[in-house]
C-alpha cells in the first residue's frame, strides 16, 4: 500500500515536500532554451493567472486590513472578542497537533510494524478525511456526538467538540508523513541496540524517535496550519459561541455577515500570518535537516 502513502503526501504535504523534490531537477541542463517549455508567453499566462486568482484577492485583503492604518489593524485584532477567538484557535490547534503527534505515530507504527486482517482497509480509511467534504465531517461527527447520540454524549457547542472536529480533518497529516519514514528506518540499528541489551523504551527514544523527528515536525506543522484555518467541520458541531467555542474562521465569516469588512480582513490577516509563519519555520527546519543528511 505504498501508493496510498505517497498520494496523501503529494496533495497535503506539498508545501513542505516541495523542497525534497528539488534534487531531481538539479542536473546539468543544456544552455539552449528548453524545447518542452512554454516560453515567455506561457510564463506570462501563468503569472497573470496566479495573480488574478490568488495574489490580487489577497492583496485586496491586506490593503483592506490596513485601511485605518497599522493602529486600526492592531485594534481590530485585539478587541476582546477577536483576541479571544484568535487565542482559542491557536490553543486548540496546538492541542490538536500534539494529539496527532502521539496518536498519528502510534497509528503509523501499527500500520507498518503490525499485521492483522483488514489492515489494507484501515490504511485506506486514513485518507478519508482528505476526500470527505468538511461539512460532511461535521454532520458525521454529529451522528455520534450530537443531540441524537446513541451513547448519550451530546458535545455540541463545547470545546471538546471543536477538538474532535479538528482531529477528524487533520488525522492523515502525521500518519502519512511518519509512515514512509518508519518503513525505511534501518531495522539493523534497532536489532544491534536490542542485542546490546537496550530496552524497547530506550530503542524508541534513541533510535526511532530521532529518525522520525523531521517527519513528525512536518506532520504536526501541517496539521496545525490546517486546524488554524478550519471552518466547515467545526461550523455545525462547534456551535460558534463567541468567546467560548468560536474559532477564528467563524468569527471572520460573522464579521462579513454583519458588514464589518475591515475587522474581517484584519483577523484574516492575523490568521494568515500565523499559518504562514508556521509553514515558514517548517521549511527552514526541513531545509536544515536535509542539509545535515
Amino acid at each position: 500500500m505504498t501508493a496510498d502513502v505517497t498520494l496523501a503526501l503529494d496533495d497535503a504535504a506539498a508545501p513542505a515536500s516541495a523542497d525534497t523534490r528539488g534534487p531531481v531537477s538539479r542536473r546539468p541542463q543544456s544552455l539552449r532554451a528548453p524545447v518542452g517549455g512554454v516560453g515567455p508567453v506561457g510564463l506570462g499566462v501563468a503569472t497573470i493567472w496566479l495573480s488574478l486568482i490568488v495574489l490580487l484577492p489577497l492583496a485586496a485583503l491586506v490593503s483592506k486590513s490596513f485601511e485605518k492604518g497599522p493602529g486600526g489593524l492592531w485594534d481590530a485584532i485585539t478587541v476582546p472578542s477577536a483576541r479571544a477567538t484568535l487565542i482559542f484557535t491557536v490553543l486548540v490547534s496546538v492541542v490538536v497537533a500534539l494529539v496527532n503527534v502521539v496518536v498519528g505515530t502510534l497509528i503509523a507504527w501499527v500500520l507498518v510494524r503490525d499485521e492483522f486482517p483488514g489492515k489494507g482497509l484501515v490504511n485506506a480509511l486514513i485518507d478519508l478525511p482528505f476526500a470527505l467534504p468538511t461539512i460532511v465531517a461535521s454532520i458525521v461527527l454529529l451522528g455520534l456526538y450530537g443531540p441524537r447520540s446513541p451513547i448519550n454524549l451530546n458535545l455540541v457547542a463545547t470545546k471538546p467538540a471543536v477538538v474532535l472536529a479538528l482531529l477528524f480533518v487533520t488525522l492523515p497529516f502525521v500518519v502519512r508523513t511518519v509512515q514512509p519514514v518508519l518503513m525505511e528506518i534501518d531495522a539493523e540499528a534497532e536489532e544491534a541496540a536490542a542485542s546490546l541489551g537496550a530496552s524497547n523504551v530506550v530503542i524508541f527514544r534513541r533510535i526511532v524517535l530521532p529518525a522520525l523527528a523531521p517527519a513528525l515536525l512536518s506532520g504536526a506543522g501541517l496539521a496545525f496550519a490546517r486546524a488554524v484555518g478550519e471552518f466547515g467541520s467545526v461550523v455545525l458541531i462547534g456551535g460558534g459561541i463567541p468567546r467560548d467555542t468560536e474559532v477564528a474562521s467563524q468569527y471572520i465569516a460573522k464579521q462579513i455577515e454583519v458588514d464589518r469588512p475591515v475587522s474581517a480582513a484584519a483577523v484574516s490577516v492575523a490568521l494568515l500570518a500565523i499559518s504562514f509563519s508556521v509553514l515558514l519555520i517548517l521549511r527552514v527546519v526541513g531545509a536544515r535537516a536535509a542539509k545535515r543528511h
Partner: protein
Amino acid sequence: METRKSTKLTLRVIALGYLAILLAVPLAIIFWRTFEHGFGPFRDSVTTPACQSAVQLSLLIVAIVVPINVVLGVVTALALARGKFPGRGVVQAVVDLPFAVSPVVVGVSLILLWGVHGWFGGLAEHGIRVIFSLPGMVLATIFVTLPFVVREVEPVLHEIGDEQEQAAATLGASRWQTFWRITLPAIRWGLVYGVVLTVARALGEFGALTVVAGGVPGKSQTLTLLVSSRYVDDRNTFGAYSAATVLMSLALLTLLLMTFVNRRRESNAR
C-alpha cells in the same frame, strides 16, 4: 525492535479504537440513519427540486473549474519545470499559497476584490455580478483547487527530463507536436490524479462558498451548502444526512479512483 505480543496487541487496540470512535462509527451511524427506513425516504429527499438544482450547480462548477485548472495548471507546471527565470521561487510559493489559506479567508478576499465595494467593484455597474453569483463561486473554487494539477504534474515533468522533447525538436517536430506526442502522454497519470483531487475538492468546498455564494436555494446553493442549510435553517436532520450521504459516496468513489490511478502511475513508472 522486538515487541512483546501483548504490547503489540495493546497498541493495535488503541490505534483501531481511535480510528473507530473518530471515523468508522460516526460514518456508519450516518449511513444507518440515512437508510434505516429503507431506500425510499432517501430517494425522496435527494430528488427534491432544491437538492437537484444543488447537484446541478455543484456539477456545473466542477465542469467549469476542471478544464481551466487543467490547461492553466499544465502551462504553469511546464513554466516551472522547463523554464529558467528570475522569481521562480516566488511562483512556487504562490502555487502553494492556497493550501495555507483558510477557505473563509479566501471568500473574504474575493469579496474585497470583486464585491461592489471592492477593487473591481466597477464591474457591478456594468451588470457583471461576481459575488453572490456563479462567477464568484467559480473563482473561489479555482482558488482552493489551484495547486492540485500543478503539484501533481510538475514532479512528473522533472522525472521524465527533457531528452525526449529535445530529440523530437531535433527531428523537426513543432512545439505542439512535441507536447501532444511526447509530453502529454508522459504526464497523463499525474494529470488524471490532479484532476481527481480537483474534482473532490471542488465538490466538497464549503467555507469559501458560504462567504461568497449567499446560498439562495435553487439558485446559488451547492450540495455542501444544502447540507448545512438543511441542518441549520430547516432543522431537517434527515435531509442533511441524505445529502451528506451523497457527498460521502462521492468521497469514497474519489478514494477508490485515487488508489486506482496511483497503481497505474506506479506500474507506468516501472
